[in-house]
């Protein structure tokens, strides 16, 4: 039934087209390559580590040499191995939190825009309350009580991403609700879920794509910062954020133990931002001003 309906003018381009369009920008390509590269690095890394990331094999802050390419950290563990093993949690937790937050936020935003009225008001009030807590503060609040479980952190960061996402998607979806194909679908009484998934969602892929890049960056920033504060991945496990705080007192002796993990986090998040901003620019240029 859907398929027989004539495609009206101005209907959104299919997503594959959007992807191709967005990838015409050099900045977006660079961002995507950095992101994928870092993800690959964190996944393959643990298998390449020459030593166990938790084994004490040298003196604390031992200098490079003796088979240790970068030397040893504050407890005498191999820095190379810890860097290679220290990103995988960030990757899966960051991606999981982004997926959760984006899905939840998009759902809330679309439902609010679709339903309107009291549902819209209520949902947006809930969003306002959630916005009162900066993600990191909310995470600290719950972690302090429940303990730093990784699943909990993913859920907390996802909840932290949700309200902003909901606002953006609601804003993007509201004009779509007045389009003919959506009104048509509503008139003939298609189920709401069907309308949201098949008629509305495909029309908001552009902001969605930008937001996914941004949210991925924010969840990695948030998770790494929590790790740095000691509320994320717990010692003795290797984790970039944790490595920075573990080794910061030895910065004068062994600067690489701080700078390299810090740079790894930065490469990851900068990749996300390059992609998001590049995509936003391409979309802005080809579709007119965003939102």
């Amino acid at each position, binding site marked *: 039934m859907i398929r027989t309906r004539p495609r009206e003018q101005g209907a959104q381009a299919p997503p594959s087209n959007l992807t191709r369009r967005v990838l015409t920008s050099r900045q977006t390509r660079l961002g995507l390559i950095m992101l994928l590269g870092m993800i690959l690095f964190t996944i393959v890394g643990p298998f390449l580590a020459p030593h166990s990331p938790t084994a004490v094999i040298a003196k604390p802050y031992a200098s490079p040499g003796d088979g240790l390419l970068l030397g040893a950290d504050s407890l005498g563990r191999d820095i190379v191995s810890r860097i290679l093993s220290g990103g995988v949690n960030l990757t899966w937790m960051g991606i999981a939190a982004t997926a959760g937050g984006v899905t939840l936020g998009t759902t809330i935003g679309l439902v609010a825009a679709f339903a309107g009225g009291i549902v819209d008001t209520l949902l*947006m*009030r809930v969003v*306002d*309350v959630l*916005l*009162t*807590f*900066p*993600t*990191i*503060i909310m995470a*600290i*609040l*719950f*972690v*302090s*009580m*429940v303990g730093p479980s990784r699943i909990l952190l993913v859920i907390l960061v996802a909840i*932290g*991403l949700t*309200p*902003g*996402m909901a*606002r*953006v998607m609601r*804003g993007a979806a509201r004009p779509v609700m007045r389009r003919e194909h959506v009104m048509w679908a509503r008139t003939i009484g298609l189920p709401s879920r069907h309308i949201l998934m098949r008629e509305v969602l495909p029309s908001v892929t552009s902001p969605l794509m930008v937001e996914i890049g941004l949210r991925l*960056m*924010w969840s990695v*920033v948030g998770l*790494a*910062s929590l790790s*740095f*504060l*000691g*509320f994320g991945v717990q010692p003795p496990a290797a984790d970039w*954020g944790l490595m*920075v*705080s573990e080794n*910061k007192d030895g*910065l*004068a002796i062994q*600067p690489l133990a*701080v*700078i390299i993990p*810090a*740079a790894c*986090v*930065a490469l990851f*998040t*900068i990749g*996300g*931002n*390059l992609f998001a*901003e590049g995509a936003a620019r391409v979309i802005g240029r080809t579709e007119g001003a965003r*939102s």
Partner: protein
Amino acid sequence: MAIETTTDNAVKAAPTPGPSQRSALPWLIARRALTGLVTLWCVSVIVFVATQAMPGDVAHIILGPSASAEQVAQLNQNLGLDQPLLSQYWNWLSSVLTGDMGDSLVSGQPVSELLAERIFNSATLTAIAMVLILPLSLLVGLLAAVFRDRLLDRSYLGTSLIVTATPDFVIGSLVIALFGTVVFKVLPPVSLIPPGDVPWEHPRQLVMPLAVMVLVGVTYLSRLVRVSFIDVLESEYVQLAIIKGLPMRRILFRHALPNALAPSIPAASIMAAFTIAGSVVIEYLFAYPGIGSALVDAVAGHDLPMIQAIIMLMAVAFFCFNQLADVLGTLNKSR
């Protein structure tokens, strides 16, 4: 760091359009105050639920697994945890509202006393940072707008993209490595302020945390200034002024500046809000004795009343700055 979510959206999308838009300002403010109170009440419920009403035994979390049954019972009684939840909440809320936040479980001193100096230190740091950020952002944003799409602007945009994406603790660690310990050893790598001293008696200790805050803040704010300057410079009346041959300096400062300033003011308030969240990381990194590092210590020491007080304080301050931004944004629009 990422000045997080919603910031941009909040500026753009914040004022919920409704029938009130054209009504009188006092009514608008009253409505905001009311929804604000409801929101803050929700916040207090969240904080309470997260800390006291969590499934599991709070006393065990505080005392650790090796605590005896008597100790647990004693603590439960001290904290009022043996009472029904609703009355616990009521007691807690009423004492918080009267400014009594209980005693610290670690030192036994009143929380309000312990926090007073910390709050003062954090507020001082934030205030100095804001004083530096505002004019700098204006200058940077203006320069970038005037030299739009030229080398200066492009390198500015590239830098800001990187700074925005980089977590505060990474920037901070690099700054410490650069000026504190590894390359130039000119500044103290930690910002310990002895208790009883006011922060500005130790200016050298403040330089690095301030540098990080200013870098992050200017990056965020100047981008908004740049965009609004570009909008103004493309507007008809500025174009006309250029055609008329008015000197560029006069156009920029007399005509463009006031109009470009307006959209940046709510953004500045949002930035202040995010400084509060960012302060946790920066204060911890530099061991600066503020409210953010107090929170990290309190969590490490399972100091429940401290955690509750600090998080309530941060949420309220964060909320107030965000509300202020919303109101300022609405005022701008209605003008």
